[in-house]
Structures are given as structure tokens and as C-alpha cells.
């Protein structure tokens, strides 16, 4: 499920490039955050044959790819002409991203174990564990979700400045949500072109004062520590 206010416009190139055999859905207003407690991507939720959640939303690193997948498929928007010099901001972001910790081997071994053994898998949690492990939620966070959804809908309605005000409220009320922040940041004009434009997520080099948010991807990751970006996976 692609979490993006821009919906098909934002997700289509990636879905068409991946050619998935599974349903690929669009979650424009992040109902996965409201209903399941998703705060970052990539995350996953496991649901058994009876419709019971057996693992709540948790960081779900992509599997290590050792073979070429879809080598016959052209990326829809290849960075055919990369800028001659990578902007300094991207260099710093890549440096931070390299420090983000994940454990794809153990995560995917657990997933395969559950697929094979079902409820007998040690990774299938009880209903009580599922609830307890889901994200904390209080009245402030609940209000933050309402602000976020309103912001997303206002953005689509063309009311960008009003959207920004509600995104800010959502960020303040649900500070642990990276998706709330990244979504809002990605909707700002980065001043660069191409498929990387939405990953800039910070002040423009040529007009830094125009940035409306308190934080940005690079500053926030540096402040919080890239090693804390993704919560460690717990069996």
C-alpha cells in the first residue's frame, strides 16, 4: 500500500516498474496510520487466514536482493541524466541513510517461518501481544491523526498553505511519525527536477527561508540519530 497524498500520481511509476502480482493499493490519507499505527515506511502487518492480526505494524526491511529482478523492465523515470555533481544535501542524506539499521535476514526468516507454520510459528503473536505491541495512542496522538488527514485532504483540494498548518499540528502531536513528516516535506517544492525531487525534503538551496517546517529529513535524522530511525525488530 503506497502512502501518498498524491495517490496514483506519486505511486504509479513505482507500481508499474515493480509489476506486482499482489494487489497494490493507494492510501492517500494514511489510514494505515490511523487504523494500524504505521509510523514509518517500510512497515508491515501480518494478518492470518481468519482476519486476525498476528503482528502489528513494525519496521519491515526489504529483502536482500541477490538476483536481478525484472531486468526486462525499464524504470519509468530513470535518472537518465544524473546531475553532473550530486548536491551536497543528497551526499549528506546518503551518508545518514547508510547508518540506518535494519535486519532483513531475520525479519524475512521469521516471515517465511510464519507462512510455513502459521499459528504454531513463534513469530505469530497472541491477540493480547498484538494489542500491547501496537503503537501507544493518547488523546493528543488521536488529534494529530485528525490534523494529518485534514492536511492531506486540503493539499489535494489545492489549499497548500492551510494544509501546511495542519501538517505542523500533526507533527507536533505525533512526533514519532516519520511518515507524517516525510509526507509533508515531500510536498514542498524542492527546486530540483527528476525522480529524486521528492526526497530532498528540506530547505531549497536558493531560498532556505521559504521552508515552512521546524524540521527536515537531514536535520531530524542527524538530531535523532540515524541508528534510531528504525526501531529494532523484536522476535
Amino acid at each position: 500500500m503506497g502512502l501518498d497524498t498524491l495517490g496514483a500520481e506519486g505511486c504509479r511509476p513505482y507500481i508499474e516498474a515493480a509489476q506486482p502480482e499482489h494487489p497494490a493499493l493507494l492510501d492517500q490519507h494514511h489510514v494505515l496510520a490511523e487504523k494500524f499505527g504505521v509510523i514509518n515506511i517500510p512497515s508491515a502487518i501480518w494478518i492470518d487466514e481468519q482476519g486476525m492480526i498476528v503482528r502489528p505494524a513494525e519496521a519491515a526491511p526489504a529483502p536482500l536482493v541477490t538476483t536481478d529482478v525484472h531486468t526486462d523492465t525499464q524504470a519509468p523515470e530513470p535518472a537518465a541524466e544524473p546531475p553532473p555533481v550530486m548536491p551536497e544535501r543528497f551526499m549528506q542524506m546518503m551518508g545518514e541513510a547508510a547508518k540506518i539499521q535494519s535486519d532483513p535476514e531475520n525479519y524475512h526468516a521469521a516471515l517465511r517461518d510464519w507462512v510455513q507454520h502459521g499459528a504454531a510459528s513463534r513469530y505469530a503473536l497472541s491477540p493480547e501481544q498484538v494489542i500491547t505491541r501496537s503503537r501507544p495512542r493518547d488523546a493528543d496522538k488521536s488529534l494529530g491523526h485528525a490534523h494529518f488527514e485534514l492536511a492531506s485532504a486540503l493539499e489535494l483540494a489545492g489549499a497548500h498553505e492551510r494544509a501546511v498548518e495542519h501538517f505542523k499540528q500533526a507533527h507536533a502531536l505525533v512526533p514519532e511519525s516519520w511518515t507524517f513528516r516525510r509526507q509533508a516535506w515531500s510536498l514542498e517544492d524542492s527546486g530540483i527536477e527528476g525522480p529524486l525531487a521528492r526526497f530532498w525534503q528540506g530547505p531549497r538551496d536558493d531560498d532556505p527561508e521559504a521552508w515552512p517546517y521546524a524540521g527536515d529529513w537531514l536535520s531530524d535524522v542527524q538530531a535523532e540519530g540515524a541508528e534510531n530511525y528504525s526501531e529494532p525488530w523484536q522476535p
Partner: protein
Amino acid sequence: MLWRNKLVDTQVFEKETGWQFKPEGACKGEVCIPLSNPPGDQVDVVKIAGQLGLPVVSDETHSLIAVGPEAIGARALTTAAAPHLQLPDLSGAPFDLASLRGNKVVVYAWAPY
């Protein structure tokens, strides 16, 4: 949850929010909140949100009403039963998560940013 109009078909409200109106009140999971005035065929989402303790943020200019999720239980999930979830695919066709019952499902959240 987003609403365009504050008057909503009661069955739609129940399906979308997971709250069920029963003789003992509005119920979700193990929790029931007594209602002095149970809704009929339609529910006023602003009014019922107030009764259920759900936050409401609205923008009248754009006819948008956002109702936040409940915080009962202090967790995002109040039950392990998967909530109703229907989202569109690229063509706009709605897909209901419940249509996958009988299969193990991994709901994978990603984003193009």
C-alpha cells in the same frame, strides 16, 4: 477518518470506524459507551465524535471533517481483529482487504518519498 458531510449513513459509519451501535451503546472491541440518544438511519459524525471522545478537526471552506481515531486502551489497536480497510488500486477500483480472508496477508506500507 475524513468525511465530506456531517450526516452519514449509520451503517457506513459503523463499517468505516469499527464502532457498532448496540442496545448498550456504541461498542468497539471490549468497550461500550452508553448513548442517551442512539442514532437512527443517519449519524451526525461531529455529534457522535463528541459522545465517543473522538477529536474533530474541520475546514468549512472545503467541507472537510476529519475525525481522529479513539485512544481507548491507549494503543493503536483495541482488538487484534483486522479493521475494515478498503482502498483503491491504480485504476481507482476499490479493493477490500477482507476479500483476502482464507489467506495469510502481509500488509506492506511503502511510499514514493
